[in-house]
């Protein structure tokens, strides 16, 4: 309703409906340039010899040395192993978080059971707890089990998130009508098949968004992987080691930074729309 009236107003010459002027687009272009510039700058420097930094004017165009610098990145850090580790870590965490969040979110949204309200309050309360602060006992445990330095140790602490459960619940509450659940039950479907045939298909968009955010979160995580598995690094940890290994050679470090940003840039190009709608949907509900 509001939507249609808002759309109808778009075509009116007055009020908010008018097309913004050059100033607006000027600001937007400046923002875009400012947001992209650091990345562009690191590509420019990353493709040049380090000496480019002592020129009178900061360089604006890339040089021809990107590949040479990249080779030096490969020589300095185990780039491909780190990339593989990051893919495994982020992939497993994403699958785990999305699966368990959808299961629990479905139960909280559409099943009636004793204590569900209390448990949901608990989930919401734990969302604000900074679990990062539990690194000391987690490290003690991992060492006790002899798991330090393994990919598994990096994965374990983020196998579930309270946010995921909350997010899936909020989505399923609105999207799946109770009547549909009841109808499935009358037809003789048990809870599991209701989950599988009714809830999961309806939850797919939300699952995709949750997967995207979980993947980003796991991919960018630095503190825990650095502590528990520095000898078997994720991409972020390897990148940081590049800096400490040759912190003077700017161009190689920046070539590495560009290289490590590429996977997420590709993901962004493919799924940027979903990312945006996810951020904006989270705001309205959260």
């Amino acid at each position: 309703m509001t939507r249609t009236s808002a759309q109808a107003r778009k075509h009116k010459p007055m009020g908010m409906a008018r097309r913004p002027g050059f100033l607006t687009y000027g600001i937007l272009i400046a923002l875009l340039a400012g947001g992209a510039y650091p990345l562009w700058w690191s590509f420019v420097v990353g493709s040049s010899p380090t000496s480019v930094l002592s020129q009178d004017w900061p360089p604006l165009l890339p040089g021809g040395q990107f590949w040479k610098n990249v080779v030096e990145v490969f020589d300095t850090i185990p780039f491909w192993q780190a990339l593989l580790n990051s893919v495994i870590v982020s992939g497993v965490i994403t699958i785990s978080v999305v699966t368990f969040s959808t299961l629990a979110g479905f139960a909280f949204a559409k099943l009636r059971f004793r204590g569900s309200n209390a448990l949901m309050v608990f989930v919401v309360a734990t969302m604000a707890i900074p679990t990062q602060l539990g690194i000391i006992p987690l490290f003690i445990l991992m060492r006790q089990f002899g798991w330090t330095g393994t990919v598994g140790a990096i994965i374990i602490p983020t196998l579930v998130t309270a946010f995921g459960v909350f997010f899936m619940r909020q989505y399923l509450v609105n999207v799946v009508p109770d009547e549909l659940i009841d109808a499935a039950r009358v037809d003789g479907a048990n809870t599991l098949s209701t989950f599988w045939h009714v809830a999961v298909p309806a939850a797919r968009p939300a699952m995709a968004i949750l997967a995207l955010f979980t993947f980003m979160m796991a991919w960018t995580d630095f503190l825990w992987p650095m502590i528990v598995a520095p000898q078997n690094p994720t991409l972020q940890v390897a990148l940081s080691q590049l800096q400490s290994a040759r912190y003077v050679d700017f161009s190689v470090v920046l070539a590495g930074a560009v290289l490590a940003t590429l996977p997420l840039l590709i993901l962004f190009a493919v799924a940027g729309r979903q990312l945006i709608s996810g951020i904006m949907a989270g705001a309205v509900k959260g």
Partner: protein
Amino acid sequence: MTSTLGQEARTSPPASRPDRRASLTFKNKLGRLDVKYSPYLYVAPFFVLFAVVGLFPLVYTFVVSLNDWNLLSGPGEWVGFGNFAKELHDELFWNSLFNTISIFLLSSVPQIIAATFIAVVLDQNLRARTFWRMGVLIPYVVTPVAVALIFSNMFSPDGGLVNHLLALVGLDPIAWKLDTLPSHLAIASMVNFRWTGYNALILLAAMQAVPRDLYESAELDGAGSVRRFFSITLPSIRPTMIFVILTSTIGGLQIFTEPRLYDAASVTGGGAHRQFQTTVLYLWEMAFQRQNFGRAAAIAWILFLIIVMFGVLNFLISRRIASADTRITSRQAKRRLEAARADTAKTDAVKTDTR
């Protein structure tokens, strides 16, 4: 939990309808069990895993904090709140807290103002809307480690881009890594770079939920765009604003990656004089460089309490402002809307007729 379940199972079926029970087939019984108990199976994986990896560590951190506990030799003597007392008397702890709060304020205050401004710019009838939204979000895709490396080089005192530009306009170079305030500014700029666009989109979503009628009637009343922003937009997006402020508080007080990588040469992390050592960085140094797990755990708990405190404080303040403001503005807005409706009553009538 289990005891209540047991009670329910014992009392309800025989007392309520014993006659129907006899006619239940095995399949029906199974179905009832399914309805009653399977929900717990769906939520169990989350709760079990969360208890192990989320809750237990937090509790166990407290246990560790009450002991003399070395990284290598393990638990030693029970010292009660000795570690807490040591931290609260340690200059380095307060230094780290000062740095954290300074960086947090330098990042979150300008960031929220800028994000609100960007959201206002985006909240127009733009051409290629998705393109601009994606553009604003580009920095979010650059990982914190990459951002830290890039900015660390840009702010490098010798040959760094920022000092280079300063020199071009004839200004003296700034010791971005050595001096306290400049280093805080540089680290805050990394946080701002990555999160401003993200928060702008959250605020944009809230702005788009504001009914356009309010703006139109305010405009009819002669309210300029600035006035409209402060009397309509801002009060309307307050709940989302609180959400953004809360999340940036929780995140901002735990900042680690950016200061850690800002100066890779420093062993302690946080600069030669710990001039930008944040509390999580201090915690990391205490645990893994100085190998004192007991004190590190105490730091973790103190920080946890500070975060909770900040969160509650933030919430209370913003809610008070919000409620005071909305009361006034909603009254004003209502009055205006009524006035506007009376003014345009005729046109409205025509409109409804045609519809």
